[in-house]
């Protein structure tokens, strides 16, 4: 992804939800994206699928997948890319399955609309296979969403997401609103199907613990900008950006019980960003240059990228 720029039109003027976001994703890699609410991480997920709804708009940028720029495709070609090449696993807290359709019909219509018109028996067969691969019983095919638990629903969503063997899976907080045990099961399911498919995963969320366990590399977003991308181990041991540093420091730890340190200040309003580095009002190390000039993301150490003047 190169220089993605997304705006939302509001009565108070255009809001930049994503600004010059660039990163690359290798085949089979697991990339995490973390950030506070409103930092643009969900916008990023939707932008890759080109599903930003008006008043939002992708103004610039390129999203390349296997030599094809997705942002240049026709609407119909983009529709065929969804699910077949890039699949979405929706937020766990959402009712992403149509309450009045059986699970198998919600898998079958995806197969049909992607030009696969197998016989009824083949569809049933494929549905059973998919459900089995996410650890669901075959009877689930004939059930309605309200008859399933939260974790089962989320697995059904994973079954749909992998039904066309996509190259990239975008998981947008797939385990929000699920309890820790179910969360673990869902993440294990996701990890297993990813390995089987050899697909890449972009995991969007704000659960640092989950990220630490699951992803290879981690990107940190702040105010619509990607401010750091590093291998996940490096981020936790030697964060490059002051924001990442404070984010890690704010995590509760077993060693220091009873102390909780937040990051002073609030995330800035996206329609009224401070000049220069968007983080400078909250940054303890800010210098004059931070207030005047916006830092670009650059490679500070091998595989470690950050947008900070001080590095």
């Amino acid at each position, binding site marked *: 992804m190169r220089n993605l720029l997304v705006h939302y039109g509001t009565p108070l003027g255009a809001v930049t939800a994503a600004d010059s976001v660039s990163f690359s994703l290798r085949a089979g890699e697991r990339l995490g994206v973390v950030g506070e609410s409103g930092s643009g991480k969900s916008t990023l997920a939707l932008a890759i*699928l080109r599903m930003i709804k008006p008043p939002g708009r992708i103004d610039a940028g390129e999203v390349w997948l296997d030599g094809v720029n997705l942002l240049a495709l026709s609407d119909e070609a983009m*529709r065929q890319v969804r699910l*077949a090449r890039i699949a979405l696993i929706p937020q766990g807290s959402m*009712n992403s399955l*149509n309450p*009045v359709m059986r699970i198998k019909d919600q898998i079958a*219509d*995806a197969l049909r609309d992607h030009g696969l018109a197998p016989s009824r028996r083949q569809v049933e067969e494929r549905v059973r296979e998919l459900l089995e691969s996410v650890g669901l019983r075959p009877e689930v095919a004939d059930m309605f969403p309200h008859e399933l638990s939260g974790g089962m629903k989320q697995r059904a*969503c994973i079954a749909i997401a992998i039904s066309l063997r996509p190259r990239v899976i975008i998981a947008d907080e797939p385990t929000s609103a699920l309890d820790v045990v179910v969360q673990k099961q869902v993440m294990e399911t996701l990890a297993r199907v990813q390995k089987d498919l050899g697909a890449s995963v972009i995991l969007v969320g704000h659960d640092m613990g989950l990220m630490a366990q699951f992803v290879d590399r981690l990107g940190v977003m702040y105010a619509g900008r990607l401010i750091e991308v590093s291998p996940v181990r490096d981020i936790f041991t030697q964060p490059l950006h002051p924001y990442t540093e404070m984010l890690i420091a704010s995590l509760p730890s077993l060693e220091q019980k009873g102390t909780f340190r937040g990051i002073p200040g609030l995330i800035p309003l996206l329609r009224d960003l401070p000049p220069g580095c968007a983080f400078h009002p909250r940054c303890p190390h800010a210098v004059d240059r931070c207030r005047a000039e916006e830092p670009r993301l650059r490679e500070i150490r091998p595989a470690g990228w950050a947008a900070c003047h001080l590095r």
Partner: protein
Amino acid sequence: MRADYLARRVGVFVLIVWLAATLNFFLPRLSGQDPVRATLLQQASLGGHVQTGLEAMVKEYERRFGLDRPLWKQYVTYLRDVSRFDFNYSISSYPRTVNSIIAEAIPWTVGLLGITTVLSFTIGTLLGALLAWPGAPRWMRLLMPPLWALHAIPFFLLGLILMYLLAFRMQLLPMFGGYTAGAFPGLTLTFVGDVIAHSILPALSIVLVATGGWALGMRGMMVTTQGEDYVTFAEAKGLRRLTIFLRYCVRNAILPQTTALALALGNILSGAVLVEVIFGYPGVGTILFHAIRENDHFLIQGIVFTVIVALGVATLILDVLYPLLDPRISYRRT
């Protein structure tokens, strides 16, 4: 499980009908009016002098109608009659029975209102769905303001305007009645054509007004449904726009509309009194209007009871069919 559910629903239906019948029996008696005496007095005053045998006549009529017996006996007799759909004779058009009068009027009303209700539901729901859909042609958006405006006009007023324009000024359509006076009712082509020509004006005024209501309701539901997570996920699944529109938006948005349709269909017997009266249409509304004007208690009772049964049947059918439309409503519990 389903037999259980059905039995419960039928039980509720019977209970409603019984309650309605009971109210129907006691309410007029609570009013303290004596229809026999009132009618006889009215006739006497028309005659210009007080008849000496009035009291005797009242007694005799009350004996004939069984009004001199204890209340509970009257009630039992009434319930037995009602369960056979027997509402006795009409007071105003004696010796015709209430049954025969209602039976004659029902096809007219059901024909006019049944067709217009289904028609306006179909057009309105379709329009409402398209109005809320981003994939619809832009010119459709222009339809909304006129629909709103029409919906705000009471249909009897619109009926009068249409009558003035189409029947009186342009003389395109017959102004009044269910068929040309003097025509012989029968299943001939001329008579059917005549009936259709007479029904266009009342039908048009109902459809024009009601369509806007259905469209508004559907549009509102569509807007809500389109914001649902499963529609977003359906798009992420790369489904065609038409699939999303039909199976994820319309399919879900139409559920409350169906409830409203069933209730509207149950209400058609009483729904268009004003339209029928204005156009002199020989339906249930018109006879109800005349029955009230002429204090025909038995006829009013018969019509009210029929309306209640119709509503009850509509609700019963809806209750039985709804779990098929929306699986979240189960047959298991009430």
